[in-house]
């Protein structure tokens, strides 16, 4: 496998390099960011359904909140804010 087609996204200020076609949810988990949001009582949560149903992977993408990370494909320069940074 060559590294020619690598996509770089920025999650909580940190650069993540992934293969083209990788979802934002897979990029975050692959980088060890398992808690992508905090529940209403502050519990750690991460992707559950992987297919846009459960909303457990919701993050802020390019300043738009409530985006399901499992439904968005990583593109160069895409900025993600997870619960690691945004404590809400």
């Amino acid at each position, binding site marked *: 496998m060559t590294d020619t087609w690598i996509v770089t996204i920025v999650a909580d200020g940190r650069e993540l390099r992934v293969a083209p076609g*990788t979802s934002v949810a897979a990029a975050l988990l692959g980088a060890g960011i398992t808690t992508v949001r905090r529940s209403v009582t502050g519990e750690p949560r991460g992707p559950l359904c992987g*297919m846009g149903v459960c909303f457990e992977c919701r993050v802020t993408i390019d300043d738009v909140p409530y985006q399901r990370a499992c439904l968005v494909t990583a593109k160069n320069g895409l900025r993600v804010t997870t619960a690691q940074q945004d404590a809400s």
Partner: protein
Amino acid sequence: MSAGVADIVADVVVVGAGPGGIAAATRAAESGRRTVVLDEGAEMGGNIWRHRAGDGVPTQARKWMARFARSGAMVLNGASVVDARATSGGDGFLVTAERASLACRVHGRALVLATGSRERFIPFPGWTLPGVHGVGGAQALLKAGLSFAGKRVVIAGTGPLLLPVAATLAGAGARVVLVAEQAPARAVVGFAVGLLTRPESLLQGARYRAGFFGTPYRTGLWVSEARGTERLEAVTVTDGRTTREIVCDVLCAAHGLIPNVELPRLLQCEVANGAVVVDNHQQTSRPGVYCAGEATGIGGAELAIVEGELAGLSAAGSATDVELLRHRLRPLRRMAARMEHAFAPRAELRDIVTPDTIVCRCEDVRLRSIESGWNARQAKLYTRAGMGPCQGRVCGASLEFLFGWHADTVRLPSEPALLSTILAGTADESADSLHQGA
């Protein structure tokens, strides 16, 4: 027409680009109808035909994708449908979707709902920990580029999906330490014996089993607890008599699939036993609204394609191949019924939840806040269970299993959406005028 709203006029609008939706759209477009497909995913194929970038696409999927591409049907990916309603002029339907924060309105004379299915989650202590995914959920994440290499994985729950997912994860370098099927051995064996009329399915099952050779596949065994602080560290499994702890990084747990009937319900289509009721044209109780695939009952991709073809032809007003397709439906539906019977979740799964177990993940509602004498609506009003962004898609099935409640109310928008999208969908007069001009 308001600014920033895309209006599209079609004859047939298809919701969902899985096997059923692709087959429906292809047949409708081939019949000469202007056909538009709306799908939430970034790529076509739905969950079953999803594939890893660079990996081969299944032959059947490739065949249908190519045929779809030639058919002239148009697809809008990344479009979440938030509303569907009859137009005030009575000449069709208006489907409103949100795509990249913009409203998108598609007007059609007929609708095909191919909304597919989702996994059924039954709560257990610790199931909200990061590292716990669905079974199909883990497969979806793998196909979306997540590496499971070297991860210790437990796969638990029920249904024929456990085998292919175990094989796929093991093939991707995961250390699958246990596959636990909650159904008793006699049910699983009975199901396999029933497959003797379909040797290709049995062979496929054997191939999957060979894919994780060396990993125990146990029947009559289920997860009673997941443990960890910030993420999953271990699970406890039980056969109802003894328990055992297994250290692992990932738990894939789900109990089969359930139809996605929110949009059909929004259109007031009749739903029975959790599935959309259709006639032998795949038409729902609402004239002009057709339904195909998992939303009419869990039956797999092959059945979804046949239903999709029928729905697409019917929506297009064509009678081509209809008898042939109906003939092909029968054995596929028989097998689906057998599967549902063999893999029904066992009653003991109700005893695992503790007062502290979360039953609604969106609102962190714990079992202790719920009273068994309520109904789904009361639970929602008193505890907020089902009021979060998933709109009861996860906890609805959990509460149905635990308490026997049916959450049958659906409200606009069918998915969380921007106010501008919702407003675009409620002002439908422009669609009527558009159609007159078309």
